[in-house]
């Protein structure tokens, strides 16, 4: 099996690649539709600001390429951090910005009434919701994930895969059919993160045999 990392000029590609390497899964970096179609699963990484990411996605025509791969070719997709946030309909970072629209909801600025520190940085355990059953299938009891974000995905409740306790519960992961997203960084969360990436690979290989 092979995982395609979507190349749009942003994102900590090296860490994602190294994490899959630890699982023994080969990866490649590409923005060419034919190459991405040959992958068993796609990963959308991302570091930076929402509008800058969407601008890069659009300049490379990746919005229509991804939508084709996800909906027509049923390719499993995992968005990480900003790559998860741009799955939303809309983002509110530096003004309104349209997202990929794969998962209903908006990306909003974190606001704390209890004077919690912003950005939300650090390791936290998550509470898994029914939509996250497959994604967190391999999670061990003490698993915690590394978060680092100032915006959060206010996703449609039906698509919330897991939440994390912050100032109230905020979305930690989303899932809708073959589209998954993690607000935290599985590639930076030691074995806890590797277990999630392995669940993605297993789910993707099931899709590949259908």
């Amino acid at each position, binding site marked *: 099996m092979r995982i395609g990392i979507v190349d749009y000029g942003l994102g*900590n590609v090296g860490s994602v690649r*190294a994490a899959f390497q630890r699982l023994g899964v080969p990866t490649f970096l590409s923005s060419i539709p034919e190459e991405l179609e040959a992958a068993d699963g796609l990963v959308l990484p991302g570091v930076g600001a929402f509008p800058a990411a969407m601008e890069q996605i659009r300049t490379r025509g990746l919005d229509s390429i991804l939508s084709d791969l996800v909906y027509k070719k049923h390719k499993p997709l995992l968005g990480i951090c900003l790559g998860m946030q741009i799955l939303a309909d809309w983002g509110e970072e530096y003004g309104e910005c349209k997202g990929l629209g794969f998962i209903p909801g908006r990306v909003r600025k974190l606001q704390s009434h209890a004077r919690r*520190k912003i950005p939300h940085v*650090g390791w936290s355990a998550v509470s898994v919701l029914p939509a996250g059953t497959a994604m967190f299938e391999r999670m061990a009891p003490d698993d915690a994930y590394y978060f680092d*974000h*100032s915006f959060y995905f206010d996703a449609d409740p039906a698509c919330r895969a897991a939440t994390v306790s912050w100032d109230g519960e905020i979305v930690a992961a989303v899932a809708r059919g073959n589209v998954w997203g993690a607000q935290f960084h599985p590639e930076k*969360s*030691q*074995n806890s993160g590797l277990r999630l990436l392995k669940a993605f690979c297993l789910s993707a290989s099931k899709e590949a045999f259908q």
Partner: protein
Amino acid sequence: MNSPRLVASIVVRDGLHVQSFGFRRYLPVGSPVESAREFDRWGVDEIALILLDSDLQANRRLVSEVSDAIAVPLAAIGGIRSIADARAYIAGGADKIGFNTALVENPALVHEASRIFGDQCVVASIDLVRQGARFFRWDYWKKNASNMESVDWIREVEQMGAGEILLNFPEKDGAGGGMDVEAIQQAVASTNLPLVAVGGIGATAHAAECFQVAKPSGIGVGNRLAHFEQSILLFKKALADSGAPVRTAGKATYSDSPTDTEGRPAKKSEEFLADLLFHRIEPEKI
């Protein structure tokens, strides 16, 4: 709620991981990549590379080698003079970039980095020095206190768009006599940004004491980590024993091991060792 982070501070000078004493004297430890790999294996929560060299190419190469060797977040601090430099660190695998001198000499650069990479990516590395009961910004080049009070300085770096503060104390650095808990407490109370405090840890109990009183988001340990095997696990044990909800990575926790005054493991009782024979420990699955 987040677990308090235990951050390994790896100071790099002439390409080597060094122990730092008062920002003046340095003793070599060895390869920064090997240190990072060990700290990651021992379950560290984050690694901060403090890059004292000015060779950007070498720094970038090192960031990328360290990043490839670990599966925890990496902050690369030092030597960034332009957005292109910052981009080079991030492309090499840094999750966060940190500024120290630029906070004073080129605040516009910090602002720009925050706009481009997001505030969660930008660390302000601040050095403080005590004068009586007050704390002032320490001047790296002049090696003395400026007339800027710590709370004012923290407010300024917040406005530059920093998303995190790394607080260090040159006079405590390498001394091993404990942290300046009072200064850390004051700084934590004065800002809404996550704050990692470093400087002065000579025993695991110093970290536990600082967390109990000042409650920073993270505690950085430098020199001490190179003094004994499994140091990260033993620091986490001390934090956990003091009631801090630390993250455990894997089954090795030293939770039932006695330790000496510096936090190193002491010999277990014969009864305990005999009892061990009857415990089966399942291998960890990924």
